């Protein structure tokens, strides 16, 4: 049952190669063929039956001009303007009586074909015109393509008198489905049946495209040879592709006999340059259709082609327009969505409607989002990878190449996929469930070709044969595929624009960061300088002006002090701002050592103070030792400063290992602070004491907090007015490789 179609296999191609259908070297015997030099009208080739059929006997090398029986023909040929009339078609007396003469120019000479003339006036083109006229009226009123087809087959049967006329439409796989039929009951009805692509080999299809009409008068004819077989002009076999009398493949004649038909004619339906279908007439008995009627049938076929083309285009345009509206609506919603994936799922009904699917999914690096009936998430991800970057994939049966897909065939057998990234397997999918269909074949397609010994034989049975098609969805229509393709372009714009917006934002942030940096850089250079100058000049002046009175000296000292503290403020601020940017170098830090070093630096300033240091054993910490040194420095400076009023200061530094963290506590018996304001303690420029009580810029603890924050730790303070203060910080114990602030070392 899985063996759906014996598609164009190697067998068919072999069959094509084995059958030289363009150069058969023979014609059907109901007419005669003569090939002459277009200028001299000298004979190049002739069919063996030429004299018998046309009544003219032309020796090799002799010219038509030399025989009296052909004088009218010669005159007509001289008047024939090949530019305005590619095919020569005349009914005129040649040899024994009136003949239908058809001519066309090839590189191998002028090919003339002689056939019996129409039996009655009604079969001339003039007589056929009223019939064509009524066909044009009928076809104009036809509602759809099958109705056009019904009008065409009815008209063609009336024109030709075949027992049965069929209109085949070829699908994408090349199978032909009979969509219209007109018959007199002599031959069986094939309406609705499907004929496998292998019934018409690729080479034959190509000939149908080139030569729109083909007539086989009798399935039992004996081919009449054309001599010589090789063209004296180019040394190649004579090409009869466009000849009406061309002898056909014996395999095809066998096919006809197996089908129970004695004669056949087909007219190609070309739509948008491809072979859309065939109008095919059959009779049980041999049947000749004269050239005038054939021309009328050709006109009929071309009118039908144009009508079908127009109808299909307008149907597709209508469909496309409807889907375009869906697309526009969906895009409008996507543009305002936080991201397009979310936007698709939030507008799932519109999303699925775009391709008339029952489920949809989007696969990106962010994962898979789904809506409606879909395969499971993992299968969608696998499908995205299986597609391997294909821009557009149209799949009617996932299980055909991917047996595991049978597991979810009921929810998704067909898939339409569009790629939305050039770099990654990012796809948007639409899914359709399995639809079990019954296909009526004209004969069992698996037996379409029967190979015995070294010859190919067409199948013998055309009994209607039912097949259940499983694991397939309804086919994706061209308009739906177009809609998906168009949506792909639109969404790529959205995806790309998002990426560009992000890039723009990033570059704006970077620019703004650079500005801030250069701002702080120029502050560090330019703001410090004036303070330094004031201090310098004040010092120089005080050294020179030795005679100044006490008040003047005080003023001068105040100028210097004020400038100095302003300069210190700038330094502290810069220090603080640099801290945000400077990189941290992590390593083991011995807090005991840090405390000892800091104590040494402040000891010289402690003359006249009585301080009792209680330094407990401190745990080892992880961090940037220079920065942690700054922390210890600031905390000890504070403890010393705020214990100033105490006769005996007690400063206690203790620590403990908390497993994941280490904790360090600095406690003093100084003036303390009001817990009401504890929240302000760590803010920049926040001071809890008046300047004349305690010096300072109000940045020290803010700096401490910033350093601890960047280490991923925390700091808190306890205190009471007059009761001393206790500042405690904790630092995480981390692996050397990990950066707690998430920054790389280069930042």
């Amino acid at each position: 049952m899985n063996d759906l179609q014996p598609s164009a296999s190697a067998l068919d191609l072999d069959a094509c190669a084995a059958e030289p259908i363009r150069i058969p070297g023979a014609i059907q015997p109901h007419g005669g063929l003569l090939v002459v030099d277009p200028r001299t009208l000298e004979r190049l080739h002739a069919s063996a039956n030429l004299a018998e059929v046309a009544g003219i006997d032309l020796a090799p090398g002799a010219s038509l001009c030399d025989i009296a029986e052909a004088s009218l023909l010669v005159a007509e040929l001289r008047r024939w303007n090949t530019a305005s009339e590619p095919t020569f078609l005349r009914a005129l007396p040649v040899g024994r009586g009136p003949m239908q003469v058809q001519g066309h120019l090839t590189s191998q000479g002028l090919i003339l074909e002689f056939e019996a003339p129409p039996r009655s006036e009604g079969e001339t083109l003039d007589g056929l015109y009223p019939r064509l006229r009524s066909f044009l009226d009928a076809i104009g009123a036809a509602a759809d393509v099958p109705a056009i087809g019904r009008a065409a087959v009815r008209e063609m049967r009336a024109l030709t008198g075949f027992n049965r006329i069929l209109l085949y439409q070829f699908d994408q796989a090349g199978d032909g489905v009979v969509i219209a039929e007109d018959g007199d009951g002599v031959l069986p009805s094939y309406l609705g049946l499907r004929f496998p692509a292998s019934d018409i080999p690729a080479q034959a299809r190509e000939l149908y495209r080139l030569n729109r009409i083909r007539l086989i008068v009798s399935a039992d004819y004996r081919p009449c040879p054309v001599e010589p077989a090789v063209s004296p002009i180019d040394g190649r076999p004579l090409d009869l592709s466009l000849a009406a009398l061309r002898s056909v493949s014996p395999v095809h004649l066998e096919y006809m006999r197996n089908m129970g038909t004695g004669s056949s004619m087909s007219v190609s339906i070309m739509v948008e340059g491809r072979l859309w279908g065939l109008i095919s007439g059959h009779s049980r008995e041999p049947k000749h259709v004269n050239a005038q009627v054939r021309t009328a049938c050709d006109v009929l076929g071309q009118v039908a082609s144009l009508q079908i083309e127009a109808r299909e285009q307008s149907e597709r345009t209508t469909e496309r327009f409807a889907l375009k509206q869906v697309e526009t609506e969906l895009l409008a919603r996507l543009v305002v969505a936080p991201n397009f994936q979310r936007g698709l799922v939030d507008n799932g009904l519109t999303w699925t409607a775009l391709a008339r699917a029952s489920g949809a999914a989007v696969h990106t690096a962010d994962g898979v989002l789904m809506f409606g009936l879909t395969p499971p998430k993992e299968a969608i991800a696998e499908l995205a990878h299986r597609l391997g970057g294909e821009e557009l994939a149209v799949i009617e049966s996932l299980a055909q190449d991917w047996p595991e897909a049978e597991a979810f065939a009921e929810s998704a057998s067909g898939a339409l996929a569009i790629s939305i990234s050039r770099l990654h397997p990012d796809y948007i999918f639409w899914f359709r469930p399995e639809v079990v269909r019954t296909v009526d074949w004209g004969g069992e397609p698996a037996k379409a070709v029967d190979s015995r010994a070294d010859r190919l034989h067409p199948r013998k049975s055309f009994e209607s044969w039912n097949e259940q098609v499983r694991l397939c969805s309804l086919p994706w229509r061209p308009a739906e595929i177009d809609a998906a393709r168009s949506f792909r372009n639109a969404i790529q714009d959205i995806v790309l624009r998002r990426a560009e917006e992000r890039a723009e934002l990033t570059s704006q942030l970077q620019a703004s960061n650079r500005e801030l940096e250069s701002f702080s850089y120029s502050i560090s250079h330019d703001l410090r300088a004036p303070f330094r100058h004031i201090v310098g000049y004040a010092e120089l002046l005080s050294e020179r002006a030795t005679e100044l009175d006490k008040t003047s000296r005080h003023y001068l000292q105040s100028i210097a002090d004020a400038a100095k503290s302003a300069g210190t403020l700038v330094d502290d601020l810069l220090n603080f701002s640099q801290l945000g940017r400077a990189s941290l170098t992590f390593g083991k830090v011995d807090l005991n050592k840090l405390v000892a070093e800091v104590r040494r630096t402040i000891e010289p300033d402690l003359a006249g103070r009585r301080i009792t240091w209680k330094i407990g054993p401190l745990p080892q910490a992880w961090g940037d030792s220079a920065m942690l040194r700054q922390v210890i420095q600031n905390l000890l400076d504070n403890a010393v400063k705020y214990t100033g009023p105490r006769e005996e200061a007690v400063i206690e530094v203790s620590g403990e290992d908390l497993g994941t963290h280490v904790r360090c506590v600095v406690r003093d018996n100084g003036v303390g602070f009001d817990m009401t304001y504890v929240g302000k303690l760590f803010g920049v420029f926040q001071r809890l004491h008046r300047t004349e009580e305690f010096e300072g810029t109000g940045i020290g603890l803010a700096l401490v907090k910033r350093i601890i924050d960047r280490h991923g730790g925390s700091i808190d303070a306890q205190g009471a007015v007059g009761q001393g203060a206790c500042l405690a910080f904790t630092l995480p114990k981390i692996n050397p490789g990990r950066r707690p602030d998430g920054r790389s070392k280069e930042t």
Partner: protein
Amino acid sequence: MADLRPILLVEDNPRDLELTLAALAKCQLANDIVVARDGAEALDFLYLRGDYADRPPGDPAVVLLDLKLPKIDGLEVLEQVKNDPHQRQIPVVMLTSSREERDLVRSYELGVNAFVVKPVDFNAFFEAIQDLGMFWAILNEPPPGGRNGHG
């Protein structure tokens, strides 16, 4: 003791210039002090070009170089001096207002001999200049085979 080669002071800010000269004067160094007001002038002195084409030849004992300078800035002057095999041995001390880490790092990358952030406190500045003057102008011997023109 080496012959008393001049000290080249490169400083664009007139106040910094005055204060630095005052500090150097306090050190009571016997060396001449040549002042250049921008990087281009400093290079002219070092390479005996322009206004200095006719100066007595010889390298300065030390270059005290401000970082931010008009025309050619201090880092560029430093780079040229330290990339020139004939100038490389001249001691260069960067004097700067900046506490910027990147300036410091860049200066050391370029081969600066010392880097001094001008302190706000004048006394500290004075001490720093004095130390520098003593070390580079008096104690520091030029490397053997170095250019010392006066010879």
